[in-house]
C-alpha cells in the first residue's frame, strides 16, 4: 500500500519491524554549560516523550545546538543530569551516545564524500555482508520513497540526498533518539516532502526525535512539543497547536519600545544600485531584483544564519562574484564580469568581516605592520617610524588595549574590532560591516556605534548585519530582512516593528497569521 506521501507502510514495517522496542524518554535535569565566563545553558529542565517529535527553537546562539551536543556526547555538561527512562546516563563521547542509540543528523553532512552511497550506508553499523547491506538499503530506500543509486559517489549528490543516506544509516543502526539540526537548510521543497512523513513515521514507530530549527512553519508542521530557548534559558514550552506570536515573543524577547533615533540623519544621493543579481554562496545563494542605497543611510541586514546577508556583504566587497547582474557604485556600472575586490576597494568600499582573525587580520604580524600593510603610498620600503607612530596614534584614538609591537592575535575580540576600525580608511564611502559588535562588551559596543554613527555615517553609507534584532532596530534607518537567499522585507525602521521583522526572518513573510 502506497501512502500519498510516498511511503510504503508495509515496506517500512518490514524494515523497522525487527527493531527492539526500547522506547526512550529523555529528561534533562538542571543542565548547565559554561564556556569560560559565559553561561551558555542555564538550568535546563526538559522532557522529551518517547515517540514524540520535540522542537527546539531560538535565535542564533540561544543554546539549542549546545544542548544537543551534550546529548550526543560531543560536549561535556557543566552541571545537571540526563536521564533516560528515569535512569541517569553518562555520555562522555559520541560513541557512548551511539551505543545507547542516540544519533544526530547534522546540518552539514558528516559523511565520506569520496565513498559510494552503499559504502557510506554500511559505515558505523555492525559489520554485515555486503549483500545484507545492499538488501537493507534497498528495503529502506523503497520504504521511504527515496531514490538513491548505490554506486554513486556521495560527493556527486545533493545535500538532501546525503541527508537521506545518513538518515537511513542511522535507522539501520537502530537509533532510538534522532536529533535533526536544521535539516531543511540545504534541501529542496520536494525533498522536504519526502523527509517530513519519514520522520513522522519514525516517531510513530517509537523513535524520540529532536528537531532544532529556526523555521516556525516546519516546527508547527512536524512537532508535538516545542521548547523555546533564549540566551541559554528555556523561555517557553508548549504542545501543539502552536500560536506563532507567542513563540516569536519567546524567541526574540518581549517587544521593546521603539527607541527614538538619536540623530536625524540627512540622506544624500543614491550611491549604490544593484540590478538583477544572481550569485552563489551560503545555502541558497542570493537573488536580488533591484536595490538602491543612499549616502548617509545606515542599513541593517537581518536574517537567520545563512539566509543571504553574508553573501550580500561579500558581493558588494567584491569577494563574491555574481553569475549575472550588475552593480552601480558611485556612478560606475560594474557588470558581473568586472567585479573584483580591488575594484571595490578603489571605489572606496570597505568590508569588515565578523571572523576577524580568519578573514581580516594577520596572526603573528604586529599592529604597526598592519598599519603599514594598509598604507597606500607607493614607496618600496617600509617606513617603520611612520607606521609605528601611526599605530601608536591609532591605539590611543581607538582605545586599543595593546602596544604597537603586539601581534593582532594577542588582542581580545573587542580590541581586534577597534584595530579594524582604526585601520579603516576614514574616506570610505560604502562601509560593509558583518556583525560589527560580535564578542564585544557593552562599553566597546557603545564605543563602536558611537564612532560609526558620529564619524563615519554622515559622509558614507553603512550596511551592517547582526544576529541581534535589537541592535538592528536601534541603529539602522532602514532594515532589510533576508530569508532563503532573497530580501523579503525592505522598510524604513520607523515603518516596521520587532514582530514583523522576527516573522520575516523565521517564516519569510511579515504576516504571522
Amino acid at each position, binding site marked *: 500500500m502506497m501512502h500519498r506521501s510516498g511511503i510504503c507502510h508495509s515496506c517500512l514495517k518490514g524494515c523497522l519491524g525487527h527493531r527492539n522496542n526500547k522506547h526512550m524518554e529523555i529528561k534533562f535535569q538542571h543542565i548547565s554549560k559554561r564556556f569560560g565566563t559565559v553561561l551558555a545553558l542555564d538550568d535546563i529542565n526538559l522532557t522529551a516523550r518517547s515517540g514524540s517529535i520535540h522542537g527546539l527553537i531560538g535565535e542564533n546562539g540561544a543554546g539549542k545546538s549546545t544542548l544537543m551536543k551534550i546529548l550526543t556526547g560531543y560536549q561535556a555538561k557543566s552541571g545537571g543530569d540526563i536521564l533516560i527512562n528515569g535512569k541517569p546516563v553518562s555520555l562522555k563521547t559520541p560513541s557512548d551516545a551511539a551505543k545507547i542509540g542516540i544519533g544526530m543528523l547534522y546540518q552539514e553532512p558528516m559523511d565520506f564524500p569520496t565513498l559510494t552511497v552503499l559504502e557510506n550506508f554500511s559505515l558505523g553499523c555492525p559489520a554485515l555482508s555486503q549483500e545484507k547491506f545492499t538488501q537493507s538499503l534497498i528495503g529502506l530506500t523503497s520504504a521511504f520513497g527515496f531514490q538513491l543509486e548505490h554506486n554513486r559517489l556521495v560527493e556527486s549528490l545533493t545535500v538532501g540526498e546525503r541527508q537521506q543516506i545518513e538518515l537511513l544509516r542511522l535507522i539501520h543502526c537502530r537509533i532510538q533518539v534522532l536529533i535533526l539540526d536544521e535539516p531543511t537548510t540545504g534541501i529542496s521543497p520536494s525533498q522536504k516532502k519526502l523527509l517530513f512523513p519519514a520522520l513522522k513515521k519514525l516517531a510513530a514507530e517509537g523513535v524520540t526525535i529532536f528537531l532544532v530549527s529556526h523555521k516556525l512553519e516546519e516546527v508547527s508542521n512536524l512537532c508535538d512539543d516545542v521548547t523555546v530557548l533564549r540566551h541559554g534559558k528555556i523561555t517557553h514550552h508548549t504542545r501543539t497547536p502552536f500560536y506563532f506570536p507567542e513563540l516569536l515573543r519567546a524567541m526574540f524577547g518581549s517587544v521593546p519600545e521603539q527607541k527614538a533615533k538619536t540623530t536625524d540623519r540627512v540622506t544624500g544621493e543614491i550611491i549604490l544600485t544593484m540590478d538583477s543579481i544572481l550569485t552563489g554562496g551560503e545555502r541558497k545563494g542570493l537573488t536580488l531584483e533591484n536595490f538602491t542605497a543612499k549616502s548617509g543611510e545606515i542599513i541593517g541586514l537581518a536574517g537567520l544564519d545563512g539566509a543571504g546577508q553574508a553573501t550580500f556583504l561579500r558581493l558588494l566587497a567584491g569577494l563574491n562574484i555574481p553569475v549575472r547582474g550588475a552593480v552601480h557604485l558611485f556612478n560606475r556600472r560594474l557588470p558581473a564580469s568586472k567585479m573584483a575586490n*580591488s575594484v571595490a576597494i578603489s571605489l572606496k568600499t570597505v568590508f569588515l*568581516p565578523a571572523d576577524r582573525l580568519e578573514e581580516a587580520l594577520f596572526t603573528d604580524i604586529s599592529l604597526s605592520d598592519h598599519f603599514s600593510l594598509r598604507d597606500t603610498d607607493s614607496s618600496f620600503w617600509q617606513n617603520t617610524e611612520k607606521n609605528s607612530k601611526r599605530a601608536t596614534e591609532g591605539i590611543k584614538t581607538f582605545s586599543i588595549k595593546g602596544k604597537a609591537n603586539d601581534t593582532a592575535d594577542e588582542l581580545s575580540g573587542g580590541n581586534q574590532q577597534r584595530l579594524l576600525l582604526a585601520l579603516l580608511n576614514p574616506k570610505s564611502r560604502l562601509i560593509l560591516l558583518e556583525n560589527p559588535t560580535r564578542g564585544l562588551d557593552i562599553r566597546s559596543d557603545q564605543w563602536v556605534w558611537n564612532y560609526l554613527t558620529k564619524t563615519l555615517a554622515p559622509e558614507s553609507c553603512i550596511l551592517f548585519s547582526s544576529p541581534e534584532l535589537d541592535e538592528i532596530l536601534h541603529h539602522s534607518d532602514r532594515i532589510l530582512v533576508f530569508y532563503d537567499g532573497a530580501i523579503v522585507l525592505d522598510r524604513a525602521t520607523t515603518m516596521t516593528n520587532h514582530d514583523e521583522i522576527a516573522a520575516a526572518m523565521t517564516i519569510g513573510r511579515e504576516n504571522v497569521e
Partner: protein
Amino acid sequence: MKQTPLDILKAITLVFSFTALVLFITDAPVLPVFHNIWQGAFASTMKFSQVLAVWVPLVLCSCGLLFTFRANLWNIGIEGQVIMGAIGGMAVLRFPGLTNPYIILSASFVAAMITGALWGLFAGLLKTKGGVHEIFGGLGLNFVAQGFILWLIFGPWQRPGIASMSGTELLPHKLWLTSPPGWRVAYAGLIIVLLILILAWLFLYKSKLGLKLKAIGKNPRAALLYDISPEGYYLLSILICGACAGMAGFIQITAVYHRLIPAISSGYGYLALLLVMLGGYRILSVPFLALFFAGLNVGAIQLPIVLQVDSTLSGVIQGCCVLSALFVLGLRMRRKHP
C-alpha cells in the same frame, strides 16, 4: 612560532645521537666517522674551499626559498629551476658569435636567472591558474627539467664523438669564473652570495614586498581586504626564487663543473629546502646552516675510502636534522597549545 637557537641545538644533538645509533647498529666506528667528516671538511684550506663551493649554491637556493616560504609556498620545483638556470646559462656560453668573456659571462648569468625564474613561473601559474598544488607542479617540472638536460647532454650538446654521463665538453678556460689559486670557489660566486644575502635581508625585512609576502603567507583571505593580490605575490615570490636558483645553476657550470652534467643541481635545491626549514625560515641562520650542511656533504665524501662507510651517511644526517628540528618544534608547540 619560530625556532630558537636552543631548538636548533636540541635538534642537532638529537641528530648526532640518532646517527651514532645508526652507525652503532651497522657496526661502523662512531667517533672515527664524526672525526673523519670534520677532517674531510675543515682540515685544510683546500678542503674548506670545497666546502665553500657547496656553500655558495646552497645559500643562493636558500635565499630564494625564504621568499616562497614567506608566502607559504612549498617551492619543491627549485631543483628543476637550478637545472634550467644551468641550461639557460650554458646556452649563452655556447653561443658562437660572442668573443668578450666578460660580456658572455654576464649574459650567461642573466640568462640563467631568467630561465630559472621562468621555470618557477610555470609552477606558479599551474598553482594560481590551474589549481595544481605547487608541490606537485614543482615535482613534475623537476622531472621535465631532468629529462631535458639528459636530452641535451646526449643529444644536441653531446661531446664530439661521445655522448656520456660525464656531460658536455669542457668550457674554454676564458669562460671559467676566476678562483683564488688552488681554490674551487670563484670570487664572483662569493661576491654574488654576499650581495644576495644582503638584498634578501633588505627585501624580506625592510621592504613592503617582504611584509606583504608575510601577510599573504599568514592569511591570504585577509590580504584581499588590504588590496594585496595573493596570486600576484605568489608568482612574484616564485619568480624571485627561480632567479636565485638560476644563479646557483650558473655558478655550478662556470665555477664548479665548467660544463653541463646530468647532476648539475647536485640536489642542492632539495637540501636548501631542508636547511631553510631547519633554520626556522630565518635568513640569519642560512649562512651558518649552509656551512654545516656543506661541511657534512664534503666531509662525507672520503668516508668510503677511509672507513668503508657509505658516503650517503651525510644524506641520512641531513634528513635527520630536519626531521628532528620539526619534531622539537612540534613538541614545543604542543606544550604551548596542548
